[in-house]
């Protein structure tokens, strides 16, 4: 059984300097370089001569700060996995470069401080605990410390009762949890997760979400690629949307969700017919106006004898932002913060 939400053990921060919380709820570690940085990265897949070339990434630049949870979004084929594979050193870029924890992409020793979970996780068929120990040992861990840590991370992902079972007999969701355990085993500073919750049930998703928040609070950086926009909306400090290999949207999640262009007004003491486009509920009316027309709308309510209940910027869903960003335009939406 999975650990119930709320009692996930905290991850122990290691080797971090002074931790400050910025207004965007992102932990800033003084003197730390960006955890992950893509600098004008281009990746072109070349087939046999004469065949069409595929441009997976086009001059892609992005900076992920230390101590934040960064949501990396995009439709299928946008180039998300390619970007991740380039960062992990599985591929070489056609042009451009990047850095991970201060070292160039592909630097093997740096990967000791990185936890990676691939999409469609594939692992060797052996007992879960032994498997996690194997991956920990590849990172230079050993002895009783590794054994204890393997048991700890399996407990974190709710597999303590299945630690002695062969992963070949695991369901896809359980495999994903073992994959997460192997990513966490060496207590990494940077977690790169490609669709970590796609096969998980709702309870397990909540647990993983709490795990990510705990990791961030411990000063770790999380680079999260996901199609589950509601998950991203809940945990990510910043998000980027990739479309056709190009960055089309980047900003703080809170900034993107709150539109500066529209305001929602809630009022009472008025007939629903008094304001065009208003809806009535529980004796209150609700309507939206352009931000520039907010003052006039409020004055109109007062002049009609109504009472203002609330005036708020319209909150959009990440799904709306995603669909807008990937609807064909290659330009970064206006108002998106960097």
């Amino acid at each position, binding site marked *: 059984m999975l650990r119930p939400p709320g009692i996930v053990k905290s991850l122990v921060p290691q080797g971090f300097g002074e931790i400050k919380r910025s207004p965007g709820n992102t932990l800033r570690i003084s003197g730390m370089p960006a955890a992950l940085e893509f600098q004008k990265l281009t990746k072109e897949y070349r087939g046999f001569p004469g065949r069409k070339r595929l441009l997976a990434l086009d001059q892609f630049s992005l900076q992920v700060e230390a101590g934040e949870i960064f949501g990396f979004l995009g439709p299928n084929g946008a180039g998300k996995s390619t970007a991740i594979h380039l960062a992990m050193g*599985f*591929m070489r870029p056609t042009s451009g470069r990047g850095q991970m924890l201060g070292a160039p992409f592909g630097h093997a020793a740096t990967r000791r401080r990185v936890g990676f979970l691939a999409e469609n996780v594939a692992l060797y068929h052996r007992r879960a605990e032994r498997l996690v120990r194997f991956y920990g*040992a*590849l*990172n230079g861990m050993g002895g009783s410390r590794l054994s204890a840590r393997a048991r700890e991370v399996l407990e974190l992902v709710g597999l303590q009762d299945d630690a002695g079972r062969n992963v070949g007999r695991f369901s896809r969701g359980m495999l994903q949890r073992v994959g997460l355990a192997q990513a966490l085993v060496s207590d990494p500073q940077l977690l790169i997760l490609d669709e970590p919750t796609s096969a998980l049930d709702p309870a397990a998703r909540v647990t993983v979400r709490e795990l990510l928040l705990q990791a961030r609070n411990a000063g770790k950086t999380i680079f999260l690629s996901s199609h589950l926009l509601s998950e991203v909306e809940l945990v990510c400090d910043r998000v980027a949307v990739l479309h056709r290999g190009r960055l089309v949207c980047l900003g703080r999640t809170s900034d993107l969700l709150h539109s500066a262009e529209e305001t929602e007004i809630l009022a009472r003491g008025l007939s629903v017919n008094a304001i065009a486009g208003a809806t009535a509920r529980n004796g209150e009316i609700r309507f939206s106006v352009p931000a520039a027309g907010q003052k006039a709308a409020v004055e109109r309510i007062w002049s009609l004898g109504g009472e203002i209940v609330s005036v708020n910027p319209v909150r959009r869903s990440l799904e709306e932002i995603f669909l807008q960003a990937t609807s064909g335009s290659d330009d970064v939406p206006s108002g998106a913060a960097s």
Partner: protein
Amino acid sequence: MKPSLLIGVNFVREQRWPILVLLIWILLLAFLGLISNAPRGQEDLLFIFKQVALYIVVFSIFFGGSAIYNERKTRRILAVLSKAVGRQEYLSGLVLGVTMCCGIYCFSLGLTGSWTLGQAGFPASQVWFLMLCVIAACALAGTLALMFSTFLNPFFAAGATAGVLAIPALLSHLGLAAWADIMPVYTLTVTVMGASFQSPGIPVWSPILLAIAETIICWVLAARIFARVDIAVAVE
């Protein structure tokens, strides 16, 4: 060094079923050798032993040629290379794994061979020398196949390896015997096949040393090539 060893042992573990089948085959032949009339069929027994010994050279090509391909196809390579494991270390692990698989086979064959052939009067020390020749040939053949497999699919890698290994045989056939030693798998094979009860042979170490040196060269070349290869393609 530790990651290479772990990857090597893991490779052997992944190949446990083919190895087990080969070991059963060895035990079966040893059993048949023991229940047969050894003095009358001693040359037949030695011929079967030599033939079975050389099977593993062919298997080493398959082991080496398919190692990277299988790991990439199953995507298991991603979890391994996401750790602090360099491409060179990874390949070292595979070379070690292929050699260990062949070593297990040769050790079992050496044990049964020194027992069955020893009863027929063949010197046990020579049995172990022949096994050493086979292991050296396997290490080189497997590493050569591994090198080709860094940029070819397993089928073509096995073909290319077989082609390269056949060159010394061709040169020898054309009367250029001195050049035939350039790829010592052929020389080592001839050494094994040439052993007989009448002339068990004097251990010659130079082909074994040359095979070890060429294995290292192939491994370095494979690592250079593999470092420039994309090991993952986008899943989208």
